[in-house]
């Protein structure tokens, strides 16, 4: 059964078709939510809420419209709501932390007191444990630095640069012009680059010669 047929039947109240649609879309919805909230468990809760919400409003979806953009917009909006509600002090704490580090001239490490991840020291992270540690560090860095971005800058950056959507798709989700989205991304990249160079210089150096 193709996607349009699934949507049509789900809108008509077919719960099996709706469940199939959930299975089809859950991964992208989860990752969008994850990049907004930065927490796997919370992102899964958000994904569930997205589909509960979808079930209530799917009858109003106009055939021929862009279902994915519509669904992703619900996901980003609920993700932002969840981020605000569940972690109200995180952004402020991150900003305070950055301010303190910048003031003291200290260079930041994602998890003070822990060993740096292998990749941060220039060594490739090849073991699963090294990968996980590295990913946790990178995620922490992103959460810290993205507190410097506006909500729309962060959203545009996450959706296009990390999630890999096209500018047109991001513009549709954000209900903005493509030029506006490009501008948000440009500014976000500039702010993140500056933050990385200032606070995490070890992540800005070339890591040795290429293997090939």
């Amino acid at each position, binding site marked *: 059964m193709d996607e349009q047929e699934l949507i049509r039947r789900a809108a008509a109240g077919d*719960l099996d078709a*709706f*469940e199939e649609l*959930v*299975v089809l879309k*859950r*991964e992208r919805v*989860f*990752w969008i939510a994850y*990049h907004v909230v930065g927490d*796997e468990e919370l992102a*899964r809760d958000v*994904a*569930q*809420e997205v*589909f*509960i*919400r979808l*079930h*209530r*409003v799917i009858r*109003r979806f106009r055939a021929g419209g862009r279902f994915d953009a519509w669904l992703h917009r619900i996901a980003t909006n*609920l993700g932002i*709501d*969840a981020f605000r*509600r569940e972690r109200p002090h995180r952004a402020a704490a991150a900003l305070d932390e950055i301010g303190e580090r910048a003031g003291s001239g200290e260079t930041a490490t994602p998890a003070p007191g822990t060993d740096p991840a292998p*990749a941060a020291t220039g060594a*490739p992270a090849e073991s699963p444990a090294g990968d996980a540690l*590295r*990913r946790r560090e*990178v*995620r922490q*860095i*992103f959460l810290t630095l993205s507190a410097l971005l506006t909500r729309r800058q962060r959203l545009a950056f996450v959706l296009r*640069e*990390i*999630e*890999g959507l*096209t*500018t047109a798709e991001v513009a549709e989700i954000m209900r903005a012009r493509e030029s506006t989205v490009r501008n948000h991304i*440009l500014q976000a*990249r500039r702010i*993140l*680059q500056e933050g*990385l*160079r200032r606070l*995490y210089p070890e*992540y*800005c*150096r*070339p*890591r*040795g010669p*290429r*293997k*090939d």
Partner: protein
Amino acid sequence: MHDDRMKREACHRLEPHLSSYAAGALDEETELKVRDHLSLCAACRAEMQERDPTVLFLELRRAPLPPGFLDRIAPEVRRRVEAGERPRWAPFASGIPAFGVRRLAYVAAPVMTLLLLGTLFLVHPGGPRFRGFRRPGEGGVTSPFVVPPGSARLGNAGAEGAGIIPAAPFPPPAAAPSGPPTMEEIGSPSARVYRFTVGSGGDETPIYFVVDESIDI
């Protein structure tokens, strides 16, 4: 082995584009290809880090999840749908779930503005519902000053015609038979007092206006 060779070929193919990628000067299609490759190729990411450190965040694109992590979503959604549960985080969970706060604000803002403007129009001085000033004979504020009629005229006494000012803008009461009454300045050194009389014959009523510039309201 085969994968490694393909990856190296992709590296060589996309390497000329890396500088343009860092400068944001690629067309969207090529940029997507380069970004997809960078998200998979640690060597190219490492090479790009100095020029554009934000490639670091491409590592977040797809982290492996615990097995079956997403499998719980569909059954849980189905269970909640069958149980008739409402979305937990709906702004108006019990009322109008599909009507977003932002849309409500779009409607409410112009309505509130119109209400405010309408109220201001009705109550502003001269508006149809303005009740601030009263006409003579309709009650209202009474002056604490008592100036007997015919008291000595002070101030502007030397000027010809001074002290005689036109009548108040509102029309005279119906009892006044002969045109608008004239207003006479009869004041004192500290406060100017104006008087005019309404009515005629034995039914004359003097009206006094006291203007005291030392009183700052």
